[in-house]
């Protein structure tokens, strides 16, 4: 089996429109969550989010591209450009046939759906732009990356709600490990901070009106974010042979299904995914120094996740660090695992553990070291990244310092 490494990273999220800026925000424990600036916000009861501010499509794309690129595709393409540039790979030759794109998104072009439903239902128009379908489809971002960078191998998009990115990156890892690709551009993207997108979430009554405070006893729900993070996963021998700068090694992945409830999480399902990732990586639990939590800030997730971690790690659960960066960038839904993988790379590469900000009151049901409010310097060799989706679909990645 091949070893798999990460040789490039890029991102657009509420904290910054690149990796360096996102790392700086993680170090500072800075929040990117604020008042939403969207049409009809006054008709929403939830008015905060981790919105990408100052986004100017025209600075990046021409008119012909903008009519085809939903906001989630725009974020993806800019993040992919950064990642591929950093990797130093060029897919124009033979490598293009051995490289693909595997992305996660829950909703795809939600803004495009929203705008065009508005046009036909609210404004009574009987005609929509001819590119509505290719703009909103979930695989649009993956396809545009493949076209932009000449990636001609296995390419597709997976949708598993809040675990989409982790499932995508896990599959990319497995494909390179198994030898079916030399490199995969992978990660995820989401942009559903529009009237219809938020209104749908309001209905579940799990959203906070003021802040995302994971693991804090006074947490009162999740806050939505938006953005993308894209990585270049590459065969280790291939990366080494060309002298690439390796950001981290991907060493394990596991996915499980709760087969239980469409919204409530399960401790057993989460624990099986965490333990499965360790087993896949051939790691012992006490080698793990940091876990980037799913940590949504809901009552149900955070206590269930902490219980699952305690079950898997036993006494070591009290020694490892676990933080939720959703407190800073919000819950980027199908893109969230990818944005959160950046915190894992920061921990492995620079020895900085991103904090859980907004933490105010200890919760006995979340009695782990959640790295409250302030980033911490710590040398860690192995990290995990958790994602537990609605529908009971869990996906956990294991990474190692290299």
């Amino acid at each position, binding site marked *: 089996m091949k070893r798999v490494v990460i040789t490039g990273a890029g991102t657009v999220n509420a904290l910054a429109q690149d990796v360096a800026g996102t790392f700086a925000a993680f170090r500072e424990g800075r929040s990117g969550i604020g008042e939403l600036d969207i049409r009809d916000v006054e008709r929403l*009861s939830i008015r905060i989010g981790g919105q990408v501010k100052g986004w100017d499509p025209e600075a990046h794309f021409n008119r012909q591209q903008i009519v085809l690129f939903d906001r989630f595709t725009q974020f993806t393409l800019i993040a992919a450009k950064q990642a591929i540039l950093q990797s130093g790979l060029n897919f124009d030759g033979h490598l293009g046939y051995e490289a693909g794109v595997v992305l996660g998104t829950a909703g795809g072009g939600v803004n495009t759906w929203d705008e065009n439903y508005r046009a036909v239902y609210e404004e009574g128009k009987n005609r929509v732009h001819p590119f509505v379908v290719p703009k909103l489809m979930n695989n649009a971002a993956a396809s545009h990356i493949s076209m932009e960078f000449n990636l001609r191998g296995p390419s597709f998009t997976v949708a598993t709600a809040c675990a989409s990115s982790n499932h995508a990156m896990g599959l990319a890892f497995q494909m390179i490990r198994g030898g079916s690709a030399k490199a995969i551009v992978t990660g995820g993207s989401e942009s559903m901070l529009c009237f219809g997108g938020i209104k749908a979430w309001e*209905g*579940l*009554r*799990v*959203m*906070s009106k003021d802040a995302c405070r994971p693991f804090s006893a006074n*947490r*009162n*729900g999740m806050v939505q974010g938006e953005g993308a993070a894209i990585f270049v996963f590459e065969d280790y021998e291939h990366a080494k042979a060309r002298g690439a700068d390796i950001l981290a090694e991907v060493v394990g992945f596991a996915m499980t299904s709760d087969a239980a409830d*469409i*919204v*409530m999480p399960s401790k057993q399902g989460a624990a099986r995914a965490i333990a499965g990732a360790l087993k896949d990586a051939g790691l012992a639990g006490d080698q793990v120094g940091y876990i980037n939590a799913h940590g949504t800030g*809901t*009552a*149900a997730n955070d206590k269930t996740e902490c219980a699952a971690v305690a079950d898997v790690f036993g006494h070591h659960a009290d020694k490892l660090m676990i933080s939720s960066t959703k407190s800073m960038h919000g819950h980027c839904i199908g893109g969230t695992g990818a944005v959160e993988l950046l915190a894992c790379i920061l921990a492995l590469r620079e020895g900085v553990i991103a904090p859980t900000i907004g933490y105010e009151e200890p919760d006995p049901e979340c009695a782990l070291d959640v790295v409250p409010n302030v980033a911490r310097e710590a040398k860690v060799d192995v990290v995990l990244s958790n994602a537990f989706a609605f529908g009971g679909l869990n996906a956990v990645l294991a990474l190692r310092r290299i």
Partner: protein
Amino acid sequence: MPNEVRDRVIAIIAEQAVLDVADVKPEATLEDLGIDSLGLVESIFAIEEAFDISVPFNANEPEQNAAFDISTVGSIIAAVEQLVVEQKA
């Protein structure tokens, strides 16, 4: 008017619990009736639609929600009556 509120709330809860309205007593808790968190959120939506009111309820803090006490069917009826008075005034 209060009786009308009571009857409509009970009808909504009975439908959610798949019970006869006669079997939904004011002292019953939602747990007694077999209504889970998703059923609760759906019932609140039905109440909002039926009375054209907005119910201040966050599923993350049901116990702390003084504005909308969900401890029993009776407390829900009382809370809805209060909201109807406040929001229809």
